């Protein structure tokens, strides 16, 4: 099979039902997303790099055992879609853990449920979920993910621009750069173009920021 050279959005799908995991995986793949599935919130957090119950960052000396096998590595994802009703850790619990984590809070989270309970939906949306899907999830629902994914990416790019501009300003003040304007413009223009490219249906290869709040380095 040919290697996919186009950068794809990576979605983490969490559901305790094997059938539903297969379904959501297929829905996402058909919609051209890269997919990783997890059978529980705990497993999802491990994959995202939150192993310990209390801490929000992986600690090398942590005594809590990680059940990630030698082959499994931490993943970086652009969106999390999770079932609400799961044993031990509900989709809502997972949502709260993600939003409470400095490294993961900007990842958009979508909740799925087979039950149409308005109070539950409100609670999830107020808890920071982007959207609530009623199960069974359909192919048409996949279109609704795209806007959340693009929003997440643009946010990162915008943060980068501001960071660059601040750095530039700092350099000017230190007298390091003389012709700063053109450099600034070029950088800003490049970043703006990247944002435009993100919105286009044809996504070109993107350069992921090396130090970012959102992404964990993929090995």
């Amino acid at each position, binding site marked *: 099979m040919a290697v996919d050279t186009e950068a794809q959005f990576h979605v983490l799908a969490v559901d305790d039902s094997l059938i*539903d995991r297969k*379904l959501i995986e297929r829905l996402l793949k*058909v919609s051209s997303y890269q997919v990783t599935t997890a059978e529980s919130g705990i497993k999802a957090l491990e994959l995202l790099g939150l192993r310990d119950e209390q801490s929000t960052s992986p600690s090398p000396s942590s005594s809590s055992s990680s059940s990630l096998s030698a082959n499994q590595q931490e993943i970086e994802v652009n969106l999390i879609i999770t079932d609400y009703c799961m044993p031990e850790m509900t989709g809502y619990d997972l949502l709260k853990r993600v939003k409470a984590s400095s490294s993961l809070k900007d990842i958009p989270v979508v909740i799925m449920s087979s039950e149409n309970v308005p109070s539950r939906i409100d609670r999830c949306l107020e808890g920071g979920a982007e959207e609530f899907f009623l199960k*069974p999830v359909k192919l048409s629902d996949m279109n609704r993910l795209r806007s959340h994914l693009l929003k997440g990416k643009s946010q990162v790019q915008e943060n980068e621009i501001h960071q660059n501009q601040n750095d530039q300003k700092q350099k000017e003040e230190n007298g390091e750069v003389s012709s700063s304007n053109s450099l600034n413009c070029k950088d800003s223009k490049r970043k703006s173009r990247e944002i435009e490219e993100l919105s286009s249906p044809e996504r070109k290869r993107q350069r992921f920021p090396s130090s970012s709040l959102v992404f964990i380095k993929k090995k």
Partner: protein
Amino acid sequence: MDVSMLQRTYSDLLTSLFREGILNQQFTELQQLQDENNPGFVFEVVSLFFEDSGRLINELISNFNQQAVDYKKIDAYVHQLKGSSASIGAEKIRSVCQTFREYYDKNDIQGCYNCIQPLNQEFVTFKSKLEALFTLEQQIVAAGGSIPMMRH
């Protein structure tokens, strides 16, 4: 056997499954997710369902036959079964699960109990019909034909 005959039998069977309410629109959604790159998707998911629900229904039956019935456990099983049947478009099974849960919410034990046999029956019917459908599919493909697409 003649390919067009197989195809006609297939179409008739599929149409009747929808007409009788054994399958709903969600099954069509599943079929739409299948393509040349993933030709066994529906078969794979439905097979998982056979396994999964077979097990769940056995658990239900054995739990109901116990001295002290654990209704919370039973409700959890039915919730699971309702979810997976909804996911694949097994409408009648889903519907009986729904009825069960309505009785459960009203603490109507008898009502709950009365759902178990129909649930088992619907499952047996569903399994045999879908197995027949898959067998026809295999025969059509083996005879060099293509599976008729249904519009619902």
